[in-house]
């Protein structure tokens, strides 16, 4: 249990409560980020699943985008899942708009098509082990730049990456009962 740290969960839209439940289970304090003042004194941040177009716009309108980008560039540990991964990506294959753009990868949005293409699977994640993965209208990582560690692939597509303080996942650990990814993230702090 880490009582010394506080993790921010971006709460502008999407499945943020599910991440909070996971952190609560691990006994870690968390705070919802809805405006830029909420970013004060956090030791890490989680970017949850949801709709990246919505979250990206709200980050700008609510003045969170610039300070958050600086914090991540300065080493704030970040765990990004699904839409969060799209927010973090430096390049988006099928979209001209990027968002926080601190993770040097190219992601493809809705890479598996519409909801009928959503699926579950189990695959190995480097440093973590076998993990139940939930893909919902999910993206995947098409290309990585130098220095990016590939943590997991499914059907030859990259679905988990790490770059310094940034952990990006195409799937939803918050929809499983398995806290090992959140534990691994907490250990990055």
């Amino acid at each position, binding site marked *: 249990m880490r009582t010394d740290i506080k993790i921010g969960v971006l*709460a*502008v*839209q*999407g*499945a*943020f*409560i*599910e991440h909070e439940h996971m952190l609560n289970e691990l006994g870690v304090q968390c705070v919802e980020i*809805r*405006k830029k003042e909420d970013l004060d004194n956090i030791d890490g941040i989680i970017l949850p*699943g*949801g*709709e990246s*177009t*919505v979250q990206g*716009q*709200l980050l700008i*309108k*609510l003045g969170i985008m610039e300070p958050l980008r600086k914090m991540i560039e300065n080493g704030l540990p970040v765990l990004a899942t*699904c*839409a969060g991964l799209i927010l973090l990506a430096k390049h988006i294959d*099928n*979209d001209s708009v990027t968002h926080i753009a601190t993770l040097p990868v190219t992601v493809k*949005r*809705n890479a598996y*098509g*519409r*909801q*009928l293409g*959503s*699926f*579950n699977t189990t695959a190995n994640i480097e440093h973590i082990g076998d993990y139940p993965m*939930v893909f*919902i*209208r999910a993206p995947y990582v098409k290309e990585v730049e130098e220095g990016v560690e590939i943590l997991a692939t499914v059907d030859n597509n990259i679905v988990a990456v790490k770059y310094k303080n940034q952990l990006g996942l195409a799937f*939803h650990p918050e*929809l499983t009962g398995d806290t090992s990814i959140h534990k691994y993230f907490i250990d990055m702090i």
Partner: protein
Amino acid sequence: MEKSQYELNKGLAQMLKGGVIMDVTTPEQAKIAEAAGACAVMALERIPADIRAAGGVSRMSDPKMIKGIQDAVSIPVMAKCRIGHFVEAQILEAIEIDYIDESEVLSPADDVYHIDKTQFKVPFVCGARDLGEALRRVNEGASMIRTKGEPGTGDIVQAVRHMRKMNSEIRKITSMSKDELFEEAKQLQVPYDLVKYVHENGRIPVVNFAAGGVATPADAALMMQLGAEGVFVGSGIFKSGDPAKRASAIVQAVTNYKDAALIAKLSEDLGEAMVGINANEIEIIMEERGK
């Protein structure tokens, strides 16, 4: 439907939480909605206010029109089928819609049975006025619930009534002793397991949005403070003076639904709201459809 598919479908609703789903009738409107921050769009030929004005029978939209909207945006696209019309639902599944709304806004095709939604791979959202309706729809396979409200009126009163009723019934079940749950299941006409879930978790097993009559940022924030997990806005946006601005204001109000100072700012200069019809003065009561 396999259990894992149902979990994926419930999961998609979880991803929509804290967001606004907007009714659109053209690809242009869909793009405006997406640019304003809609987390999904509902593709339909006529928005509820116009369905109400036109009268007659209203049916599923032209698949070509829905496809046009699917091509226009990258966010999930939903579409409505008539209550009980499982062939309309099959058609929507065939064109790979992301969510089907088995909706009382359209004329019901079956006045007894809802669609057996467990037979589909694609997810369903259904309207409900109280906990019994909500759990009956879940039992039929719905993976998301919304209040019915009274669509196309711009009058929030019914959505408030439905959300309050559902919440008070949930609170009642939460405080019951275990042996009272069997009788409660009988009263609600739902399986015991669903009542037990509500008793143990203090909520229904799927995401619950507000719908029907939301016209302003304040309406949207009201529903969120009453416990909605997101909001559908039908006629409220494209029946108003400045749809893009109003849509964006409602999106931000849903995110910061407790921040009155921000909602005050968002409510300024939005232009004309949809005219609205008092829910007591209308002739077609859509919420009565499908119990």
